Every structure is written in C-alpha cells, then in structure tokens.
C-alpha cells in the first residue's frame, strides 16, 4: 500500500496503482467525467421529463387522493435521492478519513449542496401534499422530523466544510459530521415501521410487491431514474469545476514562485 501512497498534487497521471486508486487520479477523473457528463445530462432530461410528464398528465388519479397523488412523482424520487446522496457523502467521507484522497474531499464538499437541494424539494413538496390530504402542512412525527434532521445535516456539512482557513481541516471535520449523521438514514427509512406516524408506510420495499399499481409505478420509476442521472450529472459537473479550480490555483502558485525566482536571479541574488 505504502509503495504507491498517492501524491495528490493537481498534476495528472501520478497514480498507476491497482484498485480504486486508478479512479482517484484527478487527471483520469477529468477525462472519464468529460465522456460521461453529456450522457448523464441527456438521461436526466429525457427520463426525468418523461417520468414527470407521464405522472402529471397520463397516469391515472389515485382512488382516494385523486389528482393530489401526482405530487408523488416529484416528492418520492427527491426523498430517495436525498437519502442515497447522503450515502454517497458518507462513503466519500470514509474514503477521505481512511485513505486521505483529496478527490473524495472535493466530492464530499460538492455532494452536500446538491443533496440539501433534493432534501429541500422533498420537504417542500411533502408539505404541499400534506396540507390537502392530511390536513396539516407539518407535523412532528418521526418520519418528517428525521427527514428534517437530514436536511440540517446537509446544511451543517456545507457550512462546516467551508468554515476553516485550512481546507483540509474543514474536510476532516465535515467527514466526521457526515459519518455521525449516517445513523439518521435507517431512522428515516424505518421510522414508519418502528413507530406509528402520520406519514404512511413504505409503498416500495425489497421483499414484497410494491403497493402502487403498475400504471402509477412506471412513471415513478422513470422519474427516479431521471432524478438519479440528474443528481450524478450535477455532482460530476461541480466536481470537475472544483478539480479544475484547484489545478488553476496551483498553476498560478507555481507561476508566481517561478516569477519570484526569476526576479531574484535578475537581481543577482542567489536563487534558493
């Protein structure tokens, strides 16, 4: 392991090690993500709009909730992506703490705002759905409260990562917060099973048939695929920008150092 301990300066093509290290090379990441990004963006737009339009206009209204159930096609994928985005954030944090990969640090910092946006979409659309159906914009039941906590975890991570003059310390602190926050994920998922809540139970689970009729399930699946591609595309684009930004900063620094040496040499001082 130690033989190819990665020197992570923005210069590309340094790690030729086996395993995941290949993908943690910023140069390789830039090439890979450049090829991937247009496909992800196209999938996000096509699948997302197909699912949302299908859900909004062509799926049948629900037998008891009527047209209001169509908020599901916005709300449910946003909730799932907020959760799986947090899993990605926690994985990046673990990689950053254990293996100290700067790309994982940057990825965690870039996932945060996107996940927070999806959590916000989930909370807002849920509130708009709850008022006509339940009769309340908000209740403090276990599902809603734990989801609100996830939103605050995202916000806390965003703030913490950017709160230090030395970015490395910010990444370290943010990673610890993200890993502590991971206990919220099973609480969100099982809140409707462990305790009684106003929120209904999970319609879709691994071990039983989904309790959503097939003509309403298809648009939900499409919208979820579109949301997922969109989440990945936004994070990749932000991460590319962050890597490039870093590279520019270090090039500028190198240039400045070089210029300083040159001016020292011109002044006849010994270049150190």
């Amino acid at each position: 392991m130690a033989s190819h301990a990665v020197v992570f300066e923005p210069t590309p093509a340094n790690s030729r090690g086996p395993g995941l290290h290949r993908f943690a090379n910023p140069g390789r990441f830039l090439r890979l993500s450049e090829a991937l990004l247009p496909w992800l963006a196209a999938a996000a737009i096509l699948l997302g709009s197909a699912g949302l339009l299908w859900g909004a206009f062509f799926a049948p209204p629900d037998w008891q909730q009527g047209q209001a159930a169509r908020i599901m096609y916005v709300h449910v994928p946003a909730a799932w992506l907020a959760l799986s985005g947090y899993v990605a954030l926690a994985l990046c944090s673990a990689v950053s703490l254990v293996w100290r990969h700067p790309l994982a640090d940057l990825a965690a910092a870039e996932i945060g705002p996107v996940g927070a946006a999806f959590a916000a979409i989930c909370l807002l659309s849920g509130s708009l759905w709850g008022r006509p159906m339940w009769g309340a914009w908000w209740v403090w039941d276990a599902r809603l409260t734990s989801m609100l906590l996830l939103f605050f975890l995202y916000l806390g991570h965003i703030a913490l990562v950017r709160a230090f003059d030395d970015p490395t310390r910010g990444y370290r602190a943010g990673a610890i917060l993200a890993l502590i926050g991971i206990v919220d994920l099973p609480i969100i998922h099982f809140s409707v099973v462990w305790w009684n809540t106003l929120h209904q139970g999970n319609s879709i689970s691994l071990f039983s048939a989904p309790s959503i009729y097939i003509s309403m399930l298809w648009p939900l699946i499409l919208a979820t695929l579109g949301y997922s591609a969109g989440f990945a595309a936004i994070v990749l684009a932000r991460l590319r920008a962050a890597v490039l930004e870093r590279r520019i900063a270090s090039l500028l620094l190198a240039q400045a150092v070089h210029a300083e040496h040159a001016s020292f040499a011109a002044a006849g001082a010994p270049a150190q």
Partner: protein
Amino acid sequence: MTRKRRRLVVLLACLAGLGTATGLALSAFSSSIVFFVTPTDLATRPPADARLVRLGGLVQQGSVRHALADGHPLVRFRVTDGHDSILVSFSGILPGLFREGQGVVVQGRLAPGGTFEADQVLARHDSAYMPKALVEALKKRGLWNPSAGPPPPPATWDTMRIPTRSGG
C-alpha cells in the same frame, strides 16, 4: 498494521459504537417517539390530567353522526383499533380524506365523561396507490370494501382486470 488499516479499524469501531448508542437511545425513548396512542392505550392507561394527546385509529364504520351545536357543525364518530373504540367529538372542518374506514389522528383531550374532545383531525392514508377503476373492480368482486379496512395485498392486484382505463 499500516496507518490506513488502523484508521479504517478505528472508523469502523466508532461507527459500531455510535450505531449501538443510537439504537439503545431510540429503544429507550421509543414510547415517546410515537405520534399517537391507540384507543386501547388510552383505555388501559388513561392520562392522569386533561393533557393534550393524539389518538389514532380507524373511523369506525357506521359511527359518523353530523349535528349542529350552537349553529356550528359538530361531528361525532368512534375511533377504533379493532380492539377498543373511543367516541370523538369535533367541531371544525374535516380533511378531505375523512370517511368511514379511513385512518385518522385526532388531537385533543379526554373529557371526564369518556368522550374525546378533539380540536384537530388529521387524515391518515395507507401506502396503497391505485386507480379508481381497480377499486371498483375489487369492490364488484367482493374482494374489498374500502370502509371496512385496508386494501388486499398488492400481489393479488395483478389478477385484477381493469375494465376501462379512464385517463382523467
């Protein structure tokens, strides 16, 4: 053990400890995390004072009575969990989903006479989403009466044939 391996072990140990602590805390506080109590809970352990509680259950079939009290609409219904039931009186606007057989959460106080005086009624719906035509088909074949309880398991829906697909 390399430094990376050691960091990984420390991280996993911390996560295991954190998970255990959270699990213990949640199971200890479990009774106060519930959003509502059931009629059976309320009958076996009535609140000592007239404190605000939330009562949840199904609106009992055939129990809804509408009346006027001082010119205001007043509705009385029984909330049941299949074991016990409690009479609820409420003056106000009911949510759109309110019907017999529907899940509700009512917030209010247990009056000395044993009636639950609610100041808020929230509707609770189950996690089954299906088109109206499917419900009609299920009802026609006597497989489900929506005012009697939750829908049949979704695995049986596939055998249902929806007569006409209505788009709106």
